[in-house]
């Protein structure tokens, strides 16, 4: 932090970007709405004509939608890691970035949650995914990993949203106390009568610790459960005990990269560099280096085990991924996830905004392709050579993919204009408190 911060300065700085949209911001909203419209149109086409407009080719019935579902669930993980796990470890660098990262988690899971409904085709029946009492006493199969996933994702979304809102309450009170009129009335309702009394802070801190403790195992469990959607199946290239740690590392890797992608422009455009600066981005880059290294090791291990297992089907799918029809997907994945982040080992590149942003984009792309590589190639090249095929996404699927980015970004852009993007109360904890004795000594 460059200049001397006080409690008053922190409140003023963090609330400054709220409510007054610039032309640049409105242009961003316009682009994002266009992306959303593309996605909306494509989904409308699919709802009208059925899943035939997607590129599904027997036996490939999981494609871009499941790839994108896993991608967005993974993105959410970094937010929870930063807000919960690093809170329990009392990591100081999380303070500036955790609010926006947590918002990213909630919006990413909201985006991911659309995809099961899109993927099943008849979206109006998506509520069948949830267990509910019905006339015929029919229940889902709770031994299925797909049901575990329903529980894991819905729990993750609910707990993340509660954690996010509880964290916001003291800051909503700060916004309430700085606004007038209708906006004041709105924030008064949102802050539910928070006034920072000793009673409120005491129970708040206890509850916040519990929420962090619950969110911590969720970081590890949700993507493990997502990985079992694949690993529990007997499909070559999927049926591996390596998947849970491999998926969790990949999720945190992609999520940290997405935090860099989102927060770098936020910090620059909203002049929040005293709160989200090089120090924070460098730590995020180090997180990417750690998890990216685990991921690279996992890629190597799964190839080694496929070879060493002496299972011809298993080995064949790994050879096919690297050299067959999907070689370019594999190459993109390896370049973006294993090679590109290596430049971050150099400190000056970790501290350079251009390279931070560029590499984070590479990682985002690479992590989408990783899921595509796992899903599409394994289904297109199963045990029976007569059933081998080549899955090509249609413009409908790619349009919905673009729309998912629009959906995610519209929420994020609205968030940065109506909610404090930096946790005011927590940043104040990092600032030297105003002390009478210290001021007297200075005089």
């Amino acid at each position: 932090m460059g200049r001397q911060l006080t409690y008053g300065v922190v409140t003023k700085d963090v609330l400054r970007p709220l409510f007054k949209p610039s032309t640049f911001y409105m242009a961003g909203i316009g682009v994002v709405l266009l992306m959303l419209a593309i996605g909306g149109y494509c989904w409308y086409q699919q709802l009208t004509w059925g899943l035939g407009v997607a590129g599904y080719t027997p036996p490939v019935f999981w494609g871009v939608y499941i790839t994108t579902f896993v991608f967005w669930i993974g993105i959410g993980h970094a937010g929870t890691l930063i807000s919960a796990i690093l809170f329990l470890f009392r990591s100081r660098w999380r303070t500036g970035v955790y609010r926006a990262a947590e918002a990213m988690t909630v919006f990413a899971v909201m985006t991911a949650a659309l995809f099961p409904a899109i993927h099943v085709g008849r979206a109006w029946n998506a509520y069948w995914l949830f267990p509910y009492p019905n006339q015929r006493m029919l229940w889902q199969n709770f031994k299925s990993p797909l049901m575990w996933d329903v529980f894991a994702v819905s729990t993750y979304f609910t707990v993340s949203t509660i954690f996010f809102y509880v964290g916001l309450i003291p800051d909503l009170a700060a916004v309430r106390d700085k606004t007038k009129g209708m906006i004041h009335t709105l924030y008064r309702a949102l802050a539910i009568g928070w006034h920072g009394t000793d009673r409120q802070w005491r129970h708040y801190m206890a509850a916040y610790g519990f929420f962090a403790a619950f969110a911590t195992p969720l970081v590890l469990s949700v993507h493990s459960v997502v990985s079992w959607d694949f690993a529990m199946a007997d499909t070559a290239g999927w049926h591996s005990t390596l998947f849970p740690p491999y998926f969790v590392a990949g999720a945190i890797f992609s999520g940290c990269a997405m935090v860099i992608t989102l927060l770098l422009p936020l910090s620059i455009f909203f002049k929040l560099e005293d709160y989200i600066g090089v120090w924070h981005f460098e730590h995020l880059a180090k997180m990417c280096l750690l998890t990216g290294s685990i991921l690279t090791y996992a890629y190597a291990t799964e190839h080694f085990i496929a070879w060493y297992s002496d299972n011809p089907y298993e080995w064949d799918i790994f050879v096919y991924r690297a050299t067959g029809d999907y070689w370019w997907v594999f190459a993109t994945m390896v370049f973006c996830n294993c090679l590109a982040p290596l430049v971050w080992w150099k400190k000056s590149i970790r501290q350079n905004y251009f390279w931070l942003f560029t590499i984070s984009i590479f990682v985002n792309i690479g992590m989408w392709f990783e899921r595509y590589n796992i899903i599409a190639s394994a289904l297109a090249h199963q045990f029976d050579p007569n059933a081998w095929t080549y899955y090509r996404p249609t413009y409908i699927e790619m349009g919905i993919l673009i729309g998912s980015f629009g959906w995610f970004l519209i929420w994020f852009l609205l968030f940065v204009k109506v909610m404090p993007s930096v946790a005011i109360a927590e940043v104040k904890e990092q600032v030297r408190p105003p002390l009478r004795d210290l001021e007297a000594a200075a005089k």
Partner: protein
Amino acid sequence: MSTLKAVYAHLDSLVDAIAGLKRQGLKAGDMAVMAPLPRHEIEELLYEGEPSPVRWFTMCGAIFGGASGFTLCALTQVNWPMIIPAGKPLVSIPCFIIITFECTVLWASFLTLAGLIVNCRLPGFSLPKQVQDPRFSNDHFGIVVDGLEGERLSKARTVLAEAGAVEVTDG
């Protein structure tokens, strides 16, 4: 009876004021201390390490969630038994652990939220107007003492002022 409100610009002044009021025999419930951030000094002075009862809500939620998650899985399987080859159990603990875990976390979170709301007495729209000072969410600290009269009131006023209050008012 009168309500006293003191506003402080410095944390150490606030801490001195709380300590002074405690020496006069006042306890946590007799005063409200406002701060823009959580400070351990305040909590330690007022509650002396007594843990928040929120934890009991959390524990009840976790037990209920875990039990209900497992029960949902087990009873629905027994209610509509599927023929499973190779002697695999109908009620399979490893399979049901995941939903049990998710329900444990979900319900523990719900009840922690309930515990927070109940113990913080939220929504707090009806708190005294002295407590509702916009400075307390920004850069000032405050103490509101209620229910004092006579000599105790004047002594408390003196303690609040001598600790270094920027403002002491009677409500």
